[in-house]
Every structure is written in C-alpha cells, then in structure tokens.
C-alpha cells in the first residue's frame, strides 16, 4: 500500500513527537488510520484474504506501537482491529456454513443441488464451528485462523444460501473489507461514546452528601460527575491540582460551571483532606492485564492514602484503555520523563545546573515523570463501558472484562 505510507508516517511522527497525547485521542486516530489502511488495502485473490489483511494491519500497527510505547491505547486498538478482521472472517464463514447446513436441513428435496459442495468436509465444518463458538482469548485474537476458501460470505441474516455461495472472490473480498470497515467504524463510535455507559453507573455510586476526591483531570471522571449532578445527587468535590500540569484547575472550572461545589487543593494536602472524603474517583491512562493502573503521576500517593483511610478507590476508564500486557517494573518502563523546566525555572537555576562532580555526573538531576503505577490491590472498583466489574481478584476480573469487552465487538 504505497499510498498509505505517507499517512502512516505522518501519524508515526505525531506520536513520536508527542503531538498526539492521551488515550482517547490516540485511540481514535489509530482506529481511523487503520480504517483507511483497510480500505486502501488491495485484496488479492488468494485464499487467505483475511490473513493478508491482518498482516497489513499488523505491520502498520507495529510501526505505531514503536513510535510511542507508552501510549498503550495504540496497541489496544491494533489488537482490536485484528480481532475484528478475524471475527468478521469467522462470522462470514460461519454464516456461510450456517446457511449451508440450514439449506441442507430445510431443503431436503434439493439434496441433489447441494451435492456439488464437497469442499465442506466435516472436519472443516467442525473447525469453523469451534472457532465461531470459542470465547475470544489472547490466542484467538492474535493467531491466524485458516480461512476456508469458497465459503459463502453472506453476512446477512436471511440465511439465504442459494446463489450466494461461490459468488466469486471479488464479492467475497469486498464483503470482508466492507464488514471490517463497518466494524472499525463501530469501534470508533464506541471509543467516542464510551462515556455514556460509564456515566450511567454514576447513580449507583454517588448518593447524597458525598465528598469525592479526584486528582488531575480525566474526561471520563468529568462526565461521570456531570451525570450524577444531572440526577440531582448532592456531592462535593475536592480536586487535587495535579502538578506539574495543573489540569485539576481545568476540571474544577468545568465542574463549577455545572454547579458542583468544588474545592481545589494542592497535591500535598491530599493526605490531610482524605479523612473527610467518602470516595476517590479517578481516571486512568491504561489498565494492565493484572489490574494495575497506569495513571497520571501522583495517583499512587492518593491510592495509598485512600487505603489507609479505608476510602474506596474507583477507577473509571473506557474499554480502549484495557491492555492485555502485564506490567514489569512499570514505574520505570511504562513511564515517561518530561522536561525539568516544568519544575525548575532554567533561568533561576542555571548556576546550579553547571556544577558537576569529578566523574562528570551532574550535581543536579531533575525528575519529572508523567505516569504512576497503582498496584491492583489498592483499587476497589473498575468501571468501564461494560457493566460494573468488581476487581476482587484484580487480574482475573480485569482480564475477563477485557475479553468480554473485546468479544462484544
């Protein structure tokens, strides 16, 4: 796909230069890019069109992931698209099989007509049936499933098996592409509209006279609180400002516009105030397979304080943030250090910056990480756009949730 390359390179560059940041934006743009990739892909007439398509997507995906490894949403979306491709393929095959078998069953008198479908051996049928019915797992998502050729790719539910089978490669490939593109479109819509199902859960958590604490700014949390306010629940919010980006100020302003009583506090005051807080609700950058949360810096401190005071710690996140990877040394490996100028003014401290010890290492280091890792045992509840899952056993529940989320495509 030579004509796709500029688009892809463009996006890769944006990711590398951190022009695009934030799970939501990244996820959306990745999905759109992959949709274009799929639509531009020239489907060969070979047997494994789905596999070829998946390969193309995978190649692009690897480039994107390498551009910014910390944006885990990219990888999530790529995996989702691959899964879509396989699913569409399977469902097309299954419908074809279904149609065939229905035809076989219902049209007994047409036995003779269907005799010319010997290609559907029992084994192949069984294999496809298995694939269709198997719950999605990481293995099924990522492996290649051999696609039987010449299977009718009727996706319509009419079950009309006549005349659709063997309609020719052209129409089948077009069907596959069309379905995949439609499904990716659904995925994009789901990413955009992840806030509604989450916000619907707000009334189950927020009742009357609640005091809620949050840190920084998460759009999901904002929508969550808006929904609670709509339903006339009474609550107050303490917003920790979230240095050094101070996004807490933005959230406070937005909340106040809706009439929520908000108090802005410094991050250092979180421990002091948390004794009077009923619930901590925060957003996340990514949720790992063990239930650990990659969140804006400072969140681990809040989670520890919440645990100390037995305050529930609730993480709200769209399903595009669920990542099937396990974190290893996440504070260092899944983190990004930003410029020290956020913390220290270069001009003021220029005299200190010049010192160095004999072995050449500078006397003054400034550390400005962007993310923090919250271990799963500190989280009481995850809320995603699938129904509430209680993270009782951290990784199992989260993984299950991921599977369900992906499987609901």
């Amino acid at each position: 796909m030579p004509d796709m390359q500029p688009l892809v390179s463009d996006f890769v560059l944006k990711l590398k230069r951190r022009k695009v940041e934030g799970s939501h934006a990244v996820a959306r743009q990745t999905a759109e890019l992959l949709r274009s990739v799929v639509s531009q892909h020239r489907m060969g007439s070979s047997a494994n069109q789905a596999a070829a398509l998946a390969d193309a997507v995978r190649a692009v995906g690897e480039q994107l992931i390498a551009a910014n490894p910390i944006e885990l949403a990219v990888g999530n979306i790529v995996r989702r698209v691959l899964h879509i491709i396989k699913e569409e393929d399977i469902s097309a095959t299954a419908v074809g099989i279904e149609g065939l078998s229905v035809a076989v069953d219902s049209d007994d008198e047409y036995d003779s007509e269907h005799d010319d479908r010997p290609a559907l051996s029992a084994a192949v049928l069984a294999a496809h049936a298995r694939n269709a019915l198997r719950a999605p797992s990481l293995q099924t998502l990522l492996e290649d499933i051999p696609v039987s050729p010449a299977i009718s790719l009727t996706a319509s539910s009419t079950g009309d098996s006549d005349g659709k089978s063997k309609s020719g490669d052209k129409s089948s490939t077009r069907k596959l592409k069309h379905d995949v593109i439609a499904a990716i479109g659904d995925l994009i819509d789901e990413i955009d509209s992840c806030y509604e199902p989450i916000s619907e859960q707000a009334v189950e958590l927020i009742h009357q006279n609640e005091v809620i604490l949050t840190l920084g700014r998460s759009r999901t949390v904002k929508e969550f609180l808006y929904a609670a306010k709509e339903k006339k629940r009474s609550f107050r919010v303490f917003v920790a400002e979230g240095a050094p980006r101070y996004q807490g100020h933005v959230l406070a302003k937005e909340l106040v516009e809706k009439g929520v009583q908000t108090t802005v506090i410094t991050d250092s005051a979180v421990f002091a105030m948390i004794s009077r807080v009923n619930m901590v609700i925060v957003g996340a950058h990514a949720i790992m397979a063990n239930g650990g949360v990659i969140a804006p810096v400072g969140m681990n401190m809040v989670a520890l304080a919440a645990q100390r005071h037995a305050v529930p710690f609730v993480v709200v996140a769209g399903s595009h943030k669920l990542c099937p990877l396990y974190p290893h040394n996440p504070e260092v490996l899944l983190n990004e250090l930003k410029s020290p100028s956020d913390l220290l003014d270069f001009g003021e401290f220029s005299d200190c910056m010049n010192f160095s010890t004999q072995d050449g290492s500078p006397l003054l280091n400034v550390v400005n990480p962007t993310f923090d890792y919250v271990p799963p045992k500190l989280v009481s509840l995850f809320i995603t756009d699938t129904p509430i899952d209680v993270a009782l056993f951290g990784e199992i529940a989260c993984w299950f949730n991921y599977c369900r989320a992906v499987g609901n495509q």
Partner: protein
Amino acid sequence: MDIRRPPPRSSSGGVEPRFRQVGFVTSAEPGPAAAASVPAPPAAASPPASDGLSPVMIPPPLIPDHLPVPGHASESLMPSSPPPASSSRIDAVSDLDDDDNDDVDVSWARPPPPALPEPNKRDLTETKNEGNPASVAQKPKLSKAERRAIQEAQRAAKAAAKESGLKSTAKASDVSTKMSKQPKAGKAKKDVTQVNPPVASDKKADERLPDKDRKKDVPQPRMQYDDVQRVVKAKKHSVVNQSEAQNRVALFRHLPQYAHGTQLPDLESKFFQPDLMHPSVYKVGLQYLSGDISGGNARCIAMFLAFREAINDYSTPAEKILSRDLAAKISSYVSFLIECRPLSISMGNAIRFLKNRITNLPLALSESEAKSSLQSDIDRFINEKIIVADKVIVSHAVTKIRDDDVLLTYGSPSVIEMIFDHAHELGKKFRVVVVDSRPNHEGQGLLRQLVAKGISCTYTHINAVSYIMHEVTRVFLGASSVLSNGTVYSRVGTASVAMVAHAFGVPVLVCCEAYKFHERVQLDSICFNELGDPDVISRVPRGESLSHLKNWAENENLHILNLKYDITPSDYVSMLITDYGMLPPTSVPVIVREYRREHVWI
C-alpha cells in the same frame, strides 16, 4: 504543679533534703549520688544541687506535718492522704526566688508516691516537675484574693528563710491572671492554645480560675473562629485590620482566614505610631505577614530577639509592678503577632516560658536587674533549646547516614540542612533527593544550598514521590511540632511522603527539637491548622495559559484551600531524633511530662 499549694515551708534551715537522685546523673553531680533511688528521704542531707547541674530529681517522700508551714491556710491545703511528701515539695513550689538561675532550675512540686522507685530518667541537667494530679484533686477551693495573700506570705517567708545555694525555681503561683499557663495547675486550665494565648486568656481568665482547680490540667480548647461572639471580642483588641476572606471552605470555618494582601499596607502606615507597639516587634510582625521569615526556629528566634529589645527598652510605669505590667505588655505583643500570622506551636511554648520567667521574677530585684535577668533567660533559651539542641540533633543524625545512602527530604527544614552539611563535611558519600511542592516551593532554597556545597541532588515534586522512592534508602523529615500521641505536625505533604516511604519500607526519621513538643493530641489535620493565602494556588507558574482559576472568588461554588500543616500518624515514623537523643514516637509524652518542668514554662 500546684501553684496553689503553699510552699510547705522551709523555715528550717535545710532540714529536709528536697531532692534525691535517681538514675543517670551528670558529671557535675554533687554528692548525693549515693542517695539515688532510695525512697527514704535523705534526711538532713545538705540540699544538693548547690551548684550548677542537678540531676534528675525525685522528691523524697516526706511527711507533711514535719514541716511548719507558713500561712496556715496552707495547712488546709495539705491533703493528709496520699502524697505524704507533699510538703517538702510544696516547699519547692513556693520557692519563688527566681534568682537568675540558669542551669539549675530544679524544683519539685510533685510528691511522688513514696515507695515508688522512679523509672530511670534520662540524663538531664535540670528537671522540674510540677503538678501532681492526685494531690491537686484534693485542693479545696480558694478565692483569688486568698490565694494571693498566701502567695505573698509565702514569698516573704521564703525570702526571709532562704538558704543560699538552693537554686530552685518554683512554679509561681498564678498571681497574674494572664499567667495561667501552667499545665498542671489545679487552679487554672492550661492554656495550651498556642493559637492565641493572650486573647484567650483575656477572655477566659475569669472563668478559668475558680472552677477548674481540681481538674487536671487539660489543654484548653482553642479559640474557634466560627464562634461569632469571640471573634468579635477579639477584633476589638486587634491592632491589625483584618477582613475576612471570601469563599471560605466550610470545613475550616473554625480557623481564621483573612484576605491577604490587605493588612500589610495598613500596618506599614501605622508603623510610626510608637505607642502602639515596640518597633522591633512591629517589624517582626510585618516580616511574618509578608512571609520573609518562615520556619519554626527562625520565627521563634526572631520573635525572641524582638522581645529582648522590647524588654530592654521597657520601663516600668509608676505604681505598677514590673512583672505584671511587663507580662501584660508581652501579651499584647503576642496578640499582635498572632494577628499577623498564627503562632506556631513552638512559638507558643517559648512564649509560655518567657511569661513564666517574668512572673517568677523575685520582687526584690530592681528593674534593671530584672530586665537583664529576663534578657539572659531569653538568650539562654535560644541558645540551649534551639542552637545547641540543633547541634545535638545533628550529631545524632549523622550516625544514621552511611556511605552510598540516598536520602530524601521534603521541603526545607533548617535542621535537615545542617545534618546534610555536617555529614558531607565528615566525608560521607551520599546523595540527596529534595521533594518539593506547591505553593511555596520551599525545597528550591534547600536545593541551592546543597548544590552549592557540592552535594549531588535530585529534585522532584511531591507527586513523583512514588517514582523516586524505590531508589531511596532513608527519609529525613523536619517537624513543626510533635504531639503527645506521637503524631508529627509539620508542613503539609510530609504525611504523604512518610506514607509512601512506609509503603516502600524506607525508614523515616523525623528531627525535631524538644522545645517543640506539645501535650496536645490531634487526630487529623482538620482540627487545627493554618490556612494560607488561596490566591497563591490559583496562580500557576509560567502560566497565563494555565491560569484557569483567575477569577475564582467570583464563583461561589469554587473554593481554594491552602493548608499549611498536616498530621503524620505515628506509625509512619520510624524514629524521632531530638536533643534528648533518638526516641520512638511513643516516648514523646514521657519527655513532655518529665522534662518540661525544668524550664518553668508551664
């Protein structure tokens, strides 16, 4: 202890040995070491402590009726029951001669139960113990005038019968109503409120005196600023015109919050009205208000130096007694300083000390002698309790620093800087992580100092503490005060740092001078705190684009909270390093109880 208790007597020249040594004694210990831990009164032993250092003292259990007590009312005060030794102690109590005695302020007012061997006390130069709650409980009520009469009589008797060499400072009886800061005083509830002792004492002096005789001294409830009448009353006396801040956070209505930036110009214009306030005190107040001086030790020292000058320039008006008038003046200065910025706990302790010394001035002193005695008291306090204490703390703390350590500190505690300097001079190889936070960015000053000395540093902000903690081997924190239940009251954010350190298994060492300890107990950071200027938070550095909260005051739904202090629970603290040595946080009430008396600041 019990100020009301008339000094049992002491006309007999040195018959009853008042003191008995137990446990560690200092090198300058006069003879009676042998008498240590002997419950029986070392009868007829010459009064020990005839010179400078006196050991930890435990009053011998004497029987009251031995002693002729001047002032018969005192007899009635003598409970026949439990504390048999009360009289001897009372002796000490009444020893109002405050000859400027520097080191040895030994006075013993509390009768310990006779047979009870005192626990081994730590090495101490002086100790003063007052207030036996048990004995207090049995005091009959006396009216103020009666008590004063008793006091005067006792003083006279004492002066007459005073034997030399017995330097002891007894707890002055509460002659002046404003002096009722004695913690175990049966008569007065201890005015522990460092927030506004003078204002409170003005208001509460009357109620305090008669009724609370028998109560143990409990810290008096502090002034709560949501009590409208009290606030109005306080305002009447105030020098500074404060206007209440807008948009106050409801949870903190009990704390004062004023609109910042309004007082300074007003005060500056009043600077040249000399009758209001002594200029050096005024200057210190302005420095507090503008934030030029911050940090517990610095504020305390600045305040004391200002008072020293004020005392120097003071002259007793006609027909007034120096001690009372000066005490009143100091109270007015203190209330002015409170209006500028609420007192820190350490400053409150220091003020109590000073007031106590004032009231304990012997009447016989001339004005100049009294003034110089007070000045030397102030110098001694600053020297012993702050400067030398810091040196002791540093010497203890450097033993805890090993090579290749990574030490984390938060904010800018003065004593921590000294520790790092000293360790660096000793040649230890370590590096420092300075954690800082908004809005004051105090850590930047510390950072500069350390880098200038050649210590390699890492600088980060408090949100990144979890990130950096896995590299850290020790955490050193400073404190504004340590409370009786071992909780540490210090700059906001300290609790978060200690919590994260605890979660990562890193030991937390808190360094605090002993004069900052306090008997109070606080459960969380809301009960008592200081509110700073909220506008500082809305102003974001480098941020025109980021100043979203520019007009926050207009919106009634939006509040900004700038807390200054918070409470670190004692289970996060591994060790306290004080000038009494290295202790666990549970030892704080022991220190407060046993070693405070020596300084007569109660």
